[in-house]
């Protein structure tokens, strides 16, 4: 009987093995696809002038905010030899249910081309309004530069800022706005990460 069980195990694992070998390249491709689709939809306004380059890990100085991981995987948008913008991952650590992962696209003048919430556990129906699939909330940042607003205006309305907080869920938009402001402020100090020329 033990022998039979071993035989079943062998058959079962070879089935999984065969399917794994067949699907592996497809899975890698669809992961890459999903990533590229996000990058493309985010950096679309820049793509008329440039192309998405390969991500580069940049080591940040010690004064980097907690919203940025270090080293930071920056995806450059290149026009020939010039970098005309970048897509940068950042995160809001203090969402209502843990970390919110976001993507930010900036042009060379550090103007926001787009922001998206990528991965989050926020409450469905409340906090998930940061997702572009649910509401347009996150699109209101498009076109803004950090220097366009006073530092105190980079906050939700409840904290005296100028961005809407959702009824019943203030923590989520607060976390996103604060992380975004921190990130933008950092690139004002280190603009070379975002771009090198027009």
């Amino acid at each position, binding site marked *: 009987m033990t022998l039979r069980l071993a035989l079943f195990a062998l058959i079962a694992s070879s089935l999984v093995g065969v399917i794994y070998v067949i699907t592996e390249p497809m*899975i890698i491709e669809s992961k890459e696809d*999903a990533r590229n689709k996000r990058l493309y939809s985010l950096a679309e306004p820049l793509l008329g002038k440039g192309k998405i380059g390969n991500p580069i890990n940049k080591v940040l100085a010690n004064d980097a905010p907690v919203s940025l991981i270090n080293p930071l995987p920056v995806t450059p948008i290149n026009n020939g030899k010039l970098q005309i913008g970048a897509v940068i991952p950042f995160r809001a650590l203090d969402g209502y249910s843990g970390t919110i992962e976001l993507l930010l696209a900036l042009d060379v003048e550090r103007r926001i081309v787009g922001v998206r919430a990528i991965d989050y556990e926020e409450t469905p*129906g409340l906090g998930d309004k940061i997702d572009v699939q649910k509401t347009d909330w996150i699109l209101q940042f498009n076109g803004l530069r950090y220097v366009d607003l006073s530092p105190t205006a980079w906050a939700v309305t409840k904290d005296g800022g100028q961005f809407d907080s959702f009824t*019943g869920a203030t923590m989520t938009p607060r976390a996103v706005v604060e992380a975004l402001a921190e990130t933008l402020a950092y690139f004002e100090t280190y603009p070379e990460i975002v771009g090198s020329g027009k």
Partner: protein
Amino acid sequence: MKLTTVWLDGLWDRNPGLIQLLGLCPLLAVSNTIDNAIGLGLATLFVLVMSNASISLIRHLVDEAIRLPSFVLVIAALTTSAELLMQAFDYPLYQSLGIFVPLIVTNCLILGRAESLARREPLLISTMDGLAQGLGFFFVLVSLGAIREWVSDIVILAALPPGAFITLGMLVAIHQVIQKILKRFRSNNKSDRKGRRVRTTGDIS
């Protein structure tokens, strides 16, 4: 065992979601939107049909000692395959279902069907039972998803975990009411066939 009984049981009389109340964890957790419900419903259906079929095929080869380990092995292998296939063909769906795809392994509906039916019945009956029970589960999951997605625009609670319990409770209640009416209807029909009886005791209303 007749095929009609198998189908009636799976879809209505012994529906896994409404009567047996098996597999509640994914049923409640993934029914917040229709898309998720359809995705997980199909994945569960696939694993259930395949596991019922393969367990029926090996039913003469397993004895008491290795029964459970063999069944779990079969179900785990099939679930992993389903997970890989879903990643390959519909990655966004896989991402939105997250942990609930690998958790199909622990769906008691699947082991339940293996234990109670597939290990005794021939291939055809077992496969059909997997299909019927899987579809029964699928329909409940999708109805839950549809109702919750629709109601959550009006009442936020419907999208939250308590909303899942309340909605499922209502569906179970509706099922019970219909079942009761059907039962009365069936027994009425029966007594009609036996001929009319004159009632001599009790109130006549």
